[in-house]
């Protein structure tokens, strides 16, 4: 796979605190009983959509306060640049304002907004490729840009390795991984954003993580022995 340079010893790089907080993903999908908090969120989401439809700029400010940081983070992970990410978020808000009349509430307002954001990011990437503004960009549709240096993190080498590995995934695998693992959306929400089934979202995440593990994991002892 040619990714041995990215190999990481996971257990030594992930802090103990993080290991204690580890998440088991299926729990996020299981909603056994009615959740009052979820009902409140849905009501607020609907109220926000209605306020935006009336043209109230304060509603857009509220939308930004709720989701702006996550939108910018997702855009940065897709586009690899903070500047481009901010442009994409701004363009997304303009598209939301232009298209709010067509929002019928089939999905949540936040989901609808993130779908616009994802499409806007890929439009921006295609446009950037056409203009050849970035010389070193892989010409393939699925290729991700080289990430720019970001604010310091606890494990910069781990982050860099993950970014490079993500760049090797297909577009759908990268989107699902970012939306699920980084931004914390549920498969039901991701399926609405990417217009795929929930099963496809789960399967794509599985494939993405499998590929990432192969790229990031150090060679196994058995493999090394086999090589000898």
């Amino acid at each position, binding site marked *: 796979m040619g990714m041995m340079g990215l190999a990481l010893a996971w257990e030594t790089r992930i802090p103990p605190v993080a290991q204690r907080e580890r998440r088991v993903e299926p729990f996020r999908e299981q909603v056994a009983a009615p959740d009052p908090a979820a009902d409140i969120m849905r009501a607020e989401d609907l109220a926000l959509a209605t306020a935006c439809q009336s043209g109230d700029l304060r509603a857009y400010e509220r939308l930004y306060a709720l989701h702006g940081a996550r939108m910018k983070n997702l855009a940065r992970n897709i586009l690899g640049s903070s500047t481009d990410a901010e442009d994409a978020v701004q363009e997304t808000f303009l598209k939301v304002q232009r298209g709010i009349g067509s929002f019928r509430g089939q999905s949540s307002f936040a989901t609808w907004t993130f779908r616009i954001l994802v499409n806007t990011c890929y439009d921006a990437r295609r446009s950037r490729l056409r203009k050849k503004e970035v010389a070193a960009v892989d010409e393939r549709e699925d290729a991700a840009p080289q990430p720019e240096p970001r604010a310091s993190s606890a494990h910069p080498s781990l982050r860099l390795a993950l970014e490079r590995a993500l760049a090797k995934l297909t577009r759908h695998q990268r989107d699902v991984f970012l939306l699920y693992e980084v931004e914390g959306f549920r498969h039901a929400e991701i399926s609405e954003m990417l217009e795929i089934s929930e099963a496809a979202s789960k399967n794509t995440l599985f494939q993405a993580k499998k590929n990432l*593990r192969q790229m990031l994991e150090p060679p196994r002892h058995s493999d090394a022995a086999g090589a000898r």
Partner: protein
Amino acid sequence: MNVTCNDRDRIFQDGTPADWAALEAHAASCVSCAEELRGWQSLSLAASELRDYSDSRALWPRIRQSLAEQAAVAKQQEKHWSWRSLLLNLSLSWQTATAAALVLLLMLSAGWLLRPPTPAPLQSTGLLKSKALADVENAESAYVQAIDKLAAEARPQLETPGTALMANYREKLLVLDSAIDDLRAQTGQNPSNAHLRYELLAMYQEKQRTLEEILEEKR
């Protein structure tokens, strides 16, 4: 619930909480599954390295400005396109009905403009306008007064006709007066009818000639 190594991928892909608990229990006694499980969960934790929700407040004023500008442009366009948007906002049935009404209106307008020229009614050319009618009636009145003067002069001969010719003149004048009375009654009902006026004039002229002939006979 018992799980084996073969169940691992299925649980990774779409396992229930019970499946995950069973896999963790299995991993306690299976080195291979323990390693896979640890690696799998570590990937989720590594993803947190891609989270950077640092302060993005500086971006909002820029977005707000562009939203306000776009709203202003949209409002201006709304004024220009209000009729168009009204039509587009109508339901399909109303749009169809409006289109049908417009087509009908166009067809009626075209039919009206392209209609063959209709001949003017005969009577309309003979109709007199009010001022012309007053002139005619004044002239007629003067004419009638003049004829009455002639009739007054001829009255002695007509009251005691001495000859058969004079008796014939008297009969003729009675017929003419009767015809004149009928025509006057008709013109009273339809004063603008020029045809009746011409007939009445002809009757007066005939009466005038008859009276002149009576007076000639007297001399």
